[in-house]
């Protein structure tokens, strides 16, 4: 069982959380200008990274806040957790 550190509540059992997939996906500013392929890419396509991955998790049984988790998808090691409004999101912009 993993202990995940909620940025508000501290370390809690994995069963208190739900997974929200890849983090830092930005909604396109002008959806009307997008073709179907780009729109589908935004809606459905997610990376399946082997190794370090930035994810969003929700503390669904606790404070119900979304937050960021940097996790190694091979070893399950959680490197860090951060609040959504932190700079971690912006550094992902370039990718």
């Amino acid at each position, binding site marked *: 069982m993993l202990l995940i550190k909620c940025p*508000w*509540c*501290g370390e*809690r059992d994995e069963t*208190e959380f739900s997974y929200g997939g890849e983090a830092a996906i930005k909604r396109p500013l002008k959806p009307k200008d997008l073709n179907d392929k780009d729109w589908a890419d935004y809606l459905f396509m997610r990376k399946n990274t082997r190794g370090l991955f930035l994810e969003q998790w929700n503390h669904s*049984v*606790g*404070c119900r806040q979304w937050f960021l988790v940097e996790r190694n998808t091979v070893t399950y090691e959680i490197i860090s957790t951060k609040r959504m409004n932190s700079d971690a999101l912006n550094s992902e912009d370039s990718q």
Partner: protein
Amino acid sequence: MLNENKNYALDDFINEEKSSLSSSQGLGINIRAEINFLNIRGSINDSDFIKHVEAVFQQALPLDFNTFSVGEHHIYWLAPDEWLVVTEHDLKPILQKISPEIDLYITNQTGGYTQLILQGDYARSLLSKGCTLDIGEKKFLIGQCAQTGLGKAGILLALTDSKPSFNIIVRRSFAEYVGLWLKQCGNEFGVNFTHKH
């Protein structure tokens, strides 16, 4: 007004328990029936909001995560922008004091929750059978609260004194489940149910 037509899922369960009470061995459960719940949402960056709520309830709003304040009411931190007020007071005069000028959301959730008080020497042992939270004496202190799981139910757990007494706030539809769970798992500790008004 707000307490009319209450129909507690736990009532039948409690009445049955009462008829088969054994002597208490240091672990008791009180079901609090006549109690009201208010959910409050607002921004902690809005000092007008905080001042107004504290003036209405005459009590500090707990801004530290996973803590609660005690006064005329119990006010629990639920999320960075959300609190739960648990009170025996009539809600009408309280709600009438809320100013429409202030940016806040207040919802009466009295029908949605039930509170149980678990009290006695074995309370920590009983809870740790089904609660993933570390509620050891050095980890979970008086004045702390936490939303977590007990068995398969979500609960708000709060430690109020050193007896120890735990307030367990649970969705009414899950109250019977939690009651049964505490009864079954508390069997070895001689758990004892009472209904407190």
